[in-house]
């Protein structure tokens, strides 16, 4: 299903450009797609992710809402019931808390509650993640909380190509997808993106670096850091695999099991606070699937158990290459 990038024409895009182009393409492809959110229309989104949509598709299909996250999420349920394909933006993931009753209680449960009467073809896009000195609640990594809300799929691309492929797949998916865009990646991640149709199925992890000694498991921007760490360590003769989960729900359990069984050692990286972060779930899954292949405990590299901090403290909170490298070395040293 996935195009090997060698065979297709590609363009060099930032993740932001890839997202914007995909929104353009999906709106052109399916006229049921509507975009709604705060400042998404004339302003093109505070990060310009929706730039040009309003001009191209008009005020009916690209709609600035009042500042009401709950009703942005709640209206998507009604729009889906009415046969539309809503793509809503929550301006920052931290403000999805205002919409949690609609996201966890309604968007996630429409299919289950109605036992399949309605397809919740709903995509909720939201930027998140640290490293860019934003005000409070703009950076928080909440994916683990959403992963515990059954009924939501959660896509967290780490490359520009995946941003395109996963976003297109999310919009076409009959299940609701929370599509999380790393703030640092908007302009900080770029790469070859296939031109034309490009779909990445939800639930299939990606090997971002081959390697045999240890695997670093990550998602979203942390894949970028993991790859840098792997490259640095490779120059020291260590063979470090990097597994990019791409979607945390569905979780590619088999890919995790294969990678960990092969390497025998693993490190999981996340930006959220440690307690109850999704890394715990990955570790529990590893324990379920390949405990006997483990040669050392799986290390976690996480934010700390405090609210996402202010700018001057951010660098002490957010995992970086150095902390990942230290965890890899430590895990390799363990008997």
């Amino acid at each position, binding site marked *: 299903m996935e195009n090997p990038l060698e065979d297709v024409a590609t363009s060099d895009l930032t993740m932001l450009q890839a997202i914007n182009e995909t929104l353009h393409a999906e709106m052109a492809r399916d006229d049921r797609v509507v975009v709604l959110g705060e400042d998404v229309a004339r302003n093109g989104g505070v990060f310009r992710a929706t730039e040009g949509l309003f001009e191209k598709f008009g005020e009916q299909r690209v709609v600035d809402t009042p500042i009401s996250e709950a009703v942005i999420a709640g*209206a*998507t349920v009604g729009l889906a019931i009415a046969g539309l394909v809503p793509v809503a933006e929550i301006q920052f993931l931290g403000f999805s808390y205002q919409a949690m009753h609609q996201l966890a209680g309604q968007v996630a449960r429409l299919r289950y509650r109605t036992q399949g009467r309605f397809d919740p073809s709903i995509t909720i896009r939201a930027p998140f993640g640290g490293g860019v000195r934003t005000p409070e609640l703009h950076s928080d990594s909440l994916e683990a909380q959403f992963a515990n809300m059954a009924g939501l799929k959660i896509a967290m691309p780490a490359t520009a190509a995946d941003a395109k492929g996963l976003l297109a797949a999310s919009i076409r998916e009959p299940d609701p997808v929370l599509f999380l865009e790393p703030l640092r990646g908007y302009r900080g991640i770029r790469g070859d993106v296939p031109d034309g149709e490009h779909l990445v199925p939800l639930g299939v992890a990606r090997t971002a670096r081959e390697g045999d000694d240890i695997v670093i498991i990550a998602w979203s921007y942390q894949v970028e850091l993991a790859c840098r760490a792997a490259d640095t360590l490779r120059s020291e003769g260590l063979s470090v695999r990097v597994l990019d989960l791409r979607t945390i729900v569905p979780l590619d359990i088999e890919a995790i099991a294969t990678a960990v069984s092969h390497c025998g050692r693993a490190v999981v990286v996340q930006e959220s606070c440690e307690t109850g972060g999704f890394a715990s779930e990955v570790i529990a899954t590893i324990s379920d699937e390949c405990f006997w292949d483990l040669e050392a405990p799986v290390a976690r590299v996480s934010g700390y158990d405090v609210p996402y901090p202010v700018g001057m403290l951010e660098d002490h909170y957010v995992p970086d290459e150095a902390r990942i490298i230290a965890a890899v070395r430590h895990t390799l040293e363990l008997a």
Partner: protein
Amino acid sequence: MTSPSNAQLREILVDMVMARTQSGRLWNLQRQGQVGTVAPIDGHEATIVAAVHALETEHDWVAPQYREPLALRRYGPEILERFMLYSLGHPAGGHIPEPIRVLPNQISLGTQIPHAVGIAWGMTLRSEPGVALVFFGDGSSSEGDFYEAGNLAGVLNAPVVMLCVNNQWAISTPVHQQTAAESFAAKAAGFGIPGIKVDGNDAAAVYDAVDEARSRALAGKGPTLVEAVIYRLGAHTTADDPTRYVPPEDLEAARRNDPILRLRSQLEELGLWDDDAQAATEAEAMDLLDKALDAAKAMPLSPDAVLDHCFSADTQRLERQRADLLEAGQREDR
């Protein structure tokens, strides 16, 4: 605006009597442990039935709270069938079949109001000639969702009819502790839309109000907030003891204003109703309910249905869980 004809009023009374009869029967069945929690309908019949009779069922959507289902008969017998499944705790109770434009019960108060606004908005985007009618209680109006949805509906000019069923109580909380606003209709000012307060025990008045709101919406004039003032004649639910908080004299006064007595005597005067009609309707209501309940009880259900319809297809994790669940079942069978 069209007022309901006498024939329509008679149909409305039939549905009202059916709803009350079935609600009473369900109450007893709950007491016998045969069905789950029941929220009695007593006192709400005129408002819900008349509102729904002002709709075109083919085009108009209904988003209920949880007290309405027995009064939504106009949308077809499937509503009762599914509600019996729901009352048994069968998952299929949430699946109201195509093409019926009724959503299942909503337990999370107020959350259905944004849904209705989304549906209404979606219908305009698809140029469909319908409205969305959403029911919610006086208590639910205190949720942010009510306000956010009303405000968005105003901005979008969405064809939605927001019907606040003011039965004076939210469990034990009386309206004056719910809001200091002059009325629930007064909250429409915050959305820049019309707010109408009607006597919800007067079926014709409710019909007229909803009909007018619907016409406005279809004419592109946007949403309306309708407050129907009634009184909850029964308990909040089978789990509630209203004698702890409802002043008996208020309840007495309200009983004298019972919407069914009122419409009955009006139609009796016109020669359109009598004790026989009443008895026949009640008997049919019981019969329909019993049949629907029997059918619901006969509906098969496999244990791993608990995992169905979470997603459009099982994920790897759900596949593993399905295997686990079936294994656990086998262990028990042994």
